[in-house]
């Protein structure tokens, strides 16, 4: 869907706005992503910097960091996920309400990074479906913001239902409109 699908032309439409429910819902969702900071290592420090005044993630409507998974839309996995922690990450993901997205921030969360060892999960996408991968070790706050804007783009382009596949199973959430 392109922007013009739900843009408003006052000359034609006057005080009436015609659009699609999906477009409105996606627009609202993409502009109020409430992240769950899954801070596990040094990437979390950059995540905090992104929340601070210099980089200011609130410019994109994402400043409402929720430390409860029940209130969050987007889990930002920032750091090394050990096998011992993998259970916790998955449980917190399960506790988040749909619709939900996952951002793998940095090399460790994406692939295990430099930790090729017995203790480290080789990428958080082995246990939760990941929407956006951000490179860097750790990524600078700008890279995180870029990734989050890509996530916004992805949310804006989602269809009427949220279909996501994970290891052969399809998880679907209908938008109530």
């Amino acid at each position, binding site marked *: 869907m392109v922007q013009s699908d739900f843009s408003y032309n006052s000359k034609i439409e006057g005080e009436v706005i015609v659009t699609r429910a999906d477009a409105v819902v996606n627009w609202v969702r993409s502009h109020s992503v409430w992240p769950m900071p899954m801070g596990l290592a040094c990437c979390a420090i950059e995540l905090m910097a992104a929340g601070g005044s210099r980089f200011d993630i609130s410019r994109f409507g994402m400043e409402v960091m929720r430390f409860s998974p029940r209130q969050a839309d987007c889990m930002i996995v920032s750091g090394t996920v050990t*096998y011992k922690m993998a259970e916790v990450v998955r449980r917190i993901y399960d506790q988040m309400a749909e619709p939900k997205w996952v951002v793998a921030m940095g090399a460790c969360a994406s692939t295990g990074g430099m930790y090729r060892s*017995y*203790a*480290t999960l*080789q990428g958080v996408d082995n*246990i939760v479906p990941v929407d956006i991968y951000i490179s860097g070790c750790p990524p600078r706050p700008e890279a995180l913001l870029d990734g989050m804007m890509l996530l916004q783009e992805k949310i804006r382009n989602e269809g009427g239902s949220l279909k996501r596949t994970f*290891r052969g199973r399809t998880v679907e959430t209908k938008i109530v409109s």
Partner: protein
Amino acid sequence: MDAAALTLKFPRTQSLKSIDMPTFAVANDELTEIVRYLRDTQGFDLLADLCGVDWPDRSPRFGVVLHLLSTTNKEYVRLHAACDNDAVPSVTSVHPGANWHEREAYDMFGIKFTGHPDPRRILMWESYPYHPLRKEFPLAGIEVPLPAADVAAVTGQNVEPAPMMGGPFVSHGGHMSSAEPQALDQSWNEEKPKA
């Protein structure tokens, strides 16, 4: 450091050659008493470190190394106690700070500390079947189930050996621009499987 007094009081204690600090091999069953004696009599009031060691060609294979610091005399002493049947006495009754160190040595080497108040693993999960810092344990790991059975069932994920791809990865030194860690065996990688 009064080495003569120590060996006089504990005759089975042997002095070992060391480049940096007085080092002693102590008898397994005397370890706690020696640490207590050094703390009370010779002023070694701080346990700086306690770790396990694994010498595959020695018998007994495992041992424990303690670094003690005297904050008054500004000196260190190192003690090595060989395991007896993979066990050494705990020194937590003398230095409570040894608690987590001993749990780590147990977790990583499987050394049992007799008299430890809380002998659980500290880093790996309780049902993990191996002791990862033993010499025969591969860095990449060995496949075992995830600790949480329900998460393993949903994700189908196991604890899997990490892809080493010719690793471990080590720096060959030199200038920063060329010191990037590289695999020791570069004859194979993601694209080209090991022959």
